[in-house]
């Protein structure tokens, strides 16, 4: 991993909890930027999914949050921090099918309990930490095989 390389691109985005009208906007912006940077389709596809699922989780389960992205020649790093209820049992939350989504959230097509699993599956590195009543932090890295 090229962890100490100077970023070729860095940015932060704010996500408002509960605002499903805007949900997915940050992920869309990230996808556009990564495409412009000329990254391989596969890397863009993975990063878009990771950004989307973490954005939706902030909108669904937190008051507000930040998504930051940093691109170096060797990797795309996406980190999210939110202020919210936190996750009491991370192992349980990571299980496919486990969801605490409300019926309102489910009506919109969310709440399959697949988001976190897919984030992990589509990332080369995934770390999740959470504090009950405080919030949740995710760190994801997607490797770029042949550089930007």
């Amino acid at each position, binding site marked *: 991993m090229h962890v100490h390389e100077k970023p070729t691109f860095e940015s932060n985005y704010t996500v408002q909890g509960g605002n*499903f*009208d805007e*949900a*997915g*906007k940050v*992920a*869309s912006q990230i*996808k556009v930027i990564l495409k412009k940077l000329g990254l391989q*389709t596969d890397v863009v*596809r993975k990063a*878009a*999914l990771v950004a*989307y*699922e973490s954005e*939706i989780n902030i909108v669904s389960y937190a008051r507000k949050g930040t998504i930051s992205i940093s691109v170096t020649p060797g990797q795309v790093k996406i980190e999210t921090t939110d202020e919210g209820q936190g996750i009491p049992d991370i192992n349980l939350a990571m299980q496919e099918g486990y969801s605490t989504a409300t019926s309102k959230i489910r*009506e*919109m*097509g*969310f709440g*399959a309990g*697949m*988001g976190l699993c*897919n984030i992990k*599956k*589509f990332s080369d590195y995934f770390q999740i930490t959470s504090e009950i009543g405080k919030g949740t932090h995710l760190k994801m890295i997607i490797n770029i095989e042949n550089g930007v």
Partner: protein
Amino acid sequence: MDLETIATCLNLKVFSGFDQLKTEVLDGYTGDLLSDVMANSKEGDLWMTRQVHQNIIAVASLKDHAGIIMVQGAEPAKDTLEKALKENIPVMGTDLSGFEIAGRIYNLLKEKQDITRIDP
């Protein structure tokens, strides 16, 4: 096969993306769970769903879908239509069930067109 051919053969209503109908459809995907569609659908897919909430537009756009078909007579919610028009994403509709429309599109894409056509 492009969207226009499929829309004509299957008598689909077109709600948005009117100038995108030459887009090539590579394959199809059916699903109402957005995280399933995010993970398992592909670029160029025609996505068949019963969801009408505006979040489907972001998913179709992020996944570079050829378009969306709302099944079972569903129509886009007001916000969904506005977003689809603004982002120029083709949203279409059919009265057929997800099963029926997916079967017909499958046949069209695999060129078994004779048993698939619906007369308007």
